[in-house]
């Protein structure tokens, strides 16, 4: 029987050998593919054993996101807490067990959990893992100015809308406020409460970052772009004169001014901007053509998702929209140039994009890449990454920028924004877009200050307003600017 026993023994040994081979497969070759899978519960749990990096303001204060340590069946977990609640909820986002992540918590997850592929970090975390000590993530330092951010939320009040403040020379985001805001601490504990947030628009959708995802008709704030195109064409200057009959004829029909009661008569280009005369811009638009205006818009950053550190799906591009999709006319006749010129047509913009327009004019025509992350610091207090100001490109020449500045100064000093209480020496442009509902407008205001040595550029857009850009959005901008040092507005 011994021959049979030997063979059976070989069978037994082969069976166990097969187990060793299979185990080797699952623990070596298959690992990479399995780790990345969404339903891998162990990996999801492991993320919470990492002490995530803090999210802090410029001088490491205030703290936007911190950790709460909790021990659950022998394991130490770190859960997120947002001490400032709704202050920068749309930028910072949240990191939860149930509803995963949003905002910088999502897009910078690798840095915050120290799993970014940086040799020294990888070394540190592997050592931590070997020692069994807690892995610490990198801290993220933001460019936000907490005081101005709070002023922005206060000024927006319960209204639906957003405000963005940029530093023109660098692209630093000083304020990125979306209203209504929400308390990210409630995302996990009481999501229903966030759903119930109401505002003067419906749906209020507090989770939506209106500053980068909200698409609004810009109205007359877009005239800055049209004027830029006109001036760059060489066919117009500040002294060009126009006759305003109170309307402009397009496709054989009248396109009226905002206020049709009294035509302005003979005006120059600066005055046309100052009083936001639609008929003048309508005729300029017809002269330039839609594609020329959109080309200029593109140079300001339209038709591309504004670069920012927030997740790509939390940003949208500005431009013409047809059936919910970004639409690029190939010929002039595919878009109405007259209405486009004063920001109507099917033009939709984000507050961030309009702030970039203001900042580019303030920065002598150069568009800076906006950024909200100043630097990333390792637990060992070494700077892992620092954002350097970066030019996206030149939108207009310095001369054009200066001319636009002169126009926008006139708007604030004695034009449509004259009664908004803005500090003298601020350059701005109001916008009031009709929504189709009688008396209800989307109002906006873009500005930079001080006009001669610009420190800040701002865009404010408000939904469902009964007033104009000058009477609603401009005062919001004023309150925000007053909270910013160097804007010439703080008393």
């Amino acid at each position, binding site marked *: 029987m011994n021959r*049979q026993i030997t063979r*059976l023994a070989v069978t037994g*040994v082969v*069976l*166990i050998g*097969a*187990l060793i081979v299979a185990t080797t497969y699952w623990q070596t070759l298959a690992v990479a593919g399995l780790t990345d899978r969404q339903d891998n*519960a162990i990996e999801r749990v492991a993320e919470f054993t990492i002490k995530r990096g803090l999210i802090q303001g410029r001088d490491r204060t205030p703290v936007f996101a911190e950790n709460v340590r909790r021990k659950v069946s*022998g394991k130490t977990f770190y859960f997120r807490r947002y001490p400032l609640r709704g202050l920068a909820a749309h930028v910072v986002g949240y990191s939860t067990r149930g509803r995963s992540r949003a905002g910088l918590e999502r897009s910078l997850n690798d840095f915050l959990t120290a799993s970014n592929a940086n040799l020294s970090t990888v070394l540190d975390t592997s050592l931590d893992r070997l020692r069994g000590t807690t892995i610490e993530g990198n801290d993220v330092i933001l460019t936000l100015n907490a005081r101005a951010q709070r002023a922005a939320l206060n000024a927006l009040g319960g209204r639906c809308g957003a405000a963005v403040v940029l530093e023109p020379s660098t692209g630093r985001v000083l304020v990125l406020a979306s209203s209504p805001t929400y308390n990210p601490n409630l995302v996990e504990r009481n999501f229903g409460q966030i759903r119930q947030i109401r505002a003067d628009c419906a749906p209020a959708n507090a989770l939506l970052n209106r500053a980068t995802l909200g698409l609004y008709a810009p109205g007359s704030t877009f005239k800055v772009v049209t004027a830029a195109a006109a001036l760059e064409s060489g066919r117009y200057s500040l002294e060009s004169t126009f006759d305003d009959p109170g309307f402009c004829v397009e496709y054989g029909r009248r396109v009226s001014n905002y206020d049709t009661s009294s035509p302005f008569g003979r005006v120059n280009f600066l005055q046309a901007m100052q009083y936001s005369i639609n008929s003048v811009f309508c005729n300029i638009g017809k002269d330039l053509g839609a594609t020329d205006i959109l080309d200029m818009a593109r140079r300001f950053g339209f038709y591309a998702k504004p670069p920012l550190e927030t997740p790509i799906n939390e940003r949208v591009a500005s431009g013409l929209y047809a059936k919910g999709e970004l639409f690029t006319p190939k010929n002039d006749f595919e878009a109405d140039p007259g209405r486009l010129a004063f920001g109507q047509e099917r033009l939709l913009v984000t507050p961030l994009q309009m702030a970039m327009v203001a900042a580019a004019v303030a920065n002598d025509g150069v568009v800076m890449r906006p950024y909200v992350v100043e630097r990333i610091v390792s637990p060992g207090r070494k700077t892992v990454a620092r954002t350097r100001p970066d030019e996206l490109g030149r939108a207009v020449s310095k001369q054009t920028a200066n001319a636009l500045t002169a126009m926008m100064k006139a708007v604030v000093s004695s034009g449509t924004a004259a009664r908004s209480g803005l500090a003298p020496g601020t350059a701005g442009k109001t916008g009031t877009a009709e929504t189709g509902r009688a008396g209800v407008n989307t109002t906006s205001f873009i500005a930079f200050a001080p006009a001669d040595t610009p420190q800040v550029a701002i865009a404010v857009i408000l939904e469902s307003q009964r007033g104009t850009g000058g009477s609603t959005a401009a005062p919001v901008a004023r309150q925000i600017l007053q909270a910013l040092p160097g804007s010439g507005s703080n008393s």
Partner: protein
Amino acid sequence: MTARNRELLNLIVVGMLTALGFASVYTARQAEVSTGSLSYAGLFFGLYVVAHLVARFTVPHADPYLLPMAALLTAIGVTEIYRLEPDDAFRQGLWIVIAVGLASATLLVLRRDYRRVESYKYLFGLGAVVLLALPTVPGLGTTINGATLWVRVGSFQFQPGELAKLMLIVFLAGYLRSKREVLAQGRLKDFGPLLAIWGAAMLVLVQTNDLGSAFLYFGIFLGMLYVATGRVVFAAAGLLLFFGGVYAVYQLVPRARERVSIWLDPFSRSQDEGYQLVQSTYSIANGGFGGTGFGRGTFTGTSGDPLIPFLNTDFIYSALAQELGLVGASALLLVYMLFIMRGFRIALLADDGFSKLLAAGLTFGFALQTFIIIGGILRLIPLTGITLPFVSYGGSSVLANFVLLAGLLLVSNRANARR
């Protein structure tokens, strides 16, 4: 060095490893486990010294590696169970004490000549059938995890299949020894009893809905039939018959088909039927090469909820593979391999047919059971809810495997003593 001194030396090494295991769990989980945990290792060692002394008295010539390997496997099991569910580890420890007692009793009773059990072979056969049928008796059987393998009397619960396995092996060893010449001739009429066993295996499959157990019993039978007759054709025909039967059953029972489709693609159902197997795979992969270390693995969610159901019974291998890594899991499997090789060596050295068949049957059953449960976890074969010998949590399993160990020691002692 005499065999028993060698055994003692090995046990001391195992004792030290046990202490190391408990110490690492203790350092990793100080908050959950008490300081008393280190004394477990001491108690454990003491228990095996007692077993060793019994062996010294009853089976002085027996293989010196089997007891230390069994001790090592139970130590690994208890340490992991201790890490997962400290309360279960206490119960498992108790079962091990009882099991060592039972094994000692077996050694004491049968120390003069174990071969007298051969004369009761039909009684053993009958016992096996009765035990196998128990879970299907209404009011007694309990279905856990889709398989009816359990018997519950009050709060006491056991798996009769574990003991039935041993009885079946004793019966087959006796039966095949007496009939092997006749069977080797291959006349159809001699195969009546064997076809009956095939029928029984199919019945077990349908009744318990557990392919693994059916495969285990039938596999043991085919292995022993091959050893007894030397005819590969029989084993091949038997396998064909088995899988033909399985195929037929799976055509008739839709629930059984489901198990196969989960086996083939668990990831497409990772949220429901495939959840357990998928998470177990993640657990193994998470261990990687070196593992997380004893006590440092991830088995619960952020609110303390278990990630894998049945972790310390059916899925203990996934837990061990995560915490010990490829290095530890392979080492564990190598211990099984060594145990199996020693077992077959005993079968080779034994000098009578019954002893050879008994040792080969016990060892092959041990090997097959190990393969079926771990192979199921590793997705080599469809998953089955049977225990990992010596390691899994579960009283019946521990008892049965210690009796199996005693059987191998008895055969080994006799074979070595006569040389």
